């Protein structure tokens, strides 16, 4: 745990190339969460319990956001399933339906899935504030949806998520 903590303090990027799936094909929201969760797990960012916890949480508290033109979802699990903070990003060729946050009877066609691994809730708040600003821009959503390589996705997120290293 000591070394894991140290790595967190020196790491600045939220998204790494091995956490990006582009283009992504998924049959369902559950499938998309499982695929991104597997990347987070392989990278040592979450515990083995994260995938199931995120899938269950999604059923109770849906995370699909009806953002301008291109739908986004931000599936996540509670902090106890997380080891280090990171975001796994999947850009779907064909959208999958996620439940709409706040509206249990509605779904949103989602093309951008950001699986959030955050180990402290106050950090999740900061991250969410910045993600929300990003997602409210149709131009940024289009850039993400049209990106063809993990490197370009990493660049977009690095550019827009600016959380001071000391805050992490």
């Amino acid at each position: 745990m000591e070394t894991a903590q140290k790595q967190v303090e020196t790491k600045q990027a939220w998204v790494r190339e091995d956490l990006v799936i582009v283009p992504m094909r998924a049959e369902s929201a559950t499938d998309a969460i499982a695929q991104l969760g597997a990347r987070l797990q392989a990278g040592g960012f979450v515990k083995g319990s994260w995938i199931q916890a995120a899938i269950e949480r999604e059923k109770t508290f849906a995370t699909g956001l009806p953002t301008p033109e291109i739908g986004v979802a931000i599936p996540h699990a509670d902090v106890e399933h997380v080891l280090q903070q990171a975001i796994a990003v999947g850009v779907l060729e064909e959208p999958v339906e996620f439940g709409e946050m706040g509206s249990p009877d509605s779904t949103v066609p989602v093309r951008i899935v950001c699986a959030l691994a955050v180990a402290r809730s106050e950090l999740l708040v900061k991250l969410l504030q910045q993600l929300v600003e990003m997602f409210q821009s149709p131009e940024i959503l289009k850039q993400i949806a049209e990106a063809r390589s993990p490197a370009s996705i990493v660049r977009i997120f690095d550019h827009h998520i600016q959380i001071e290293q000391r805050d992490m």
Partner: protein
Amino acid sequence: MNGEKRVLIACGTSIATATVVAEKVKEIAKEAGISVRVAQCKAAEVRGRIETFNPHVIVATTPVPKDLGIPVFNGVPFLSGVGMDELKAQILEALGKA
């Protein structure tokens, strides 16, 4: 405007989305010159918080009961950006009447 208005923000786990929405509500109230006090809770705690906090308006990012007798607004437009201007206007109108 007569006195401080109380806004209860409800979300699934009471922290992340509610905090983002709470900041937005404080911001629009300040711009409109309305003094507000904001409290956050989990959706399951809404009924209890109505008794202790006595809010004028509820803004929720997760489903809450409809029969609360207090105006309830879906706060998700603050997160998605779509429909945000209408939501701001509706919340300010409800606070103005409260």
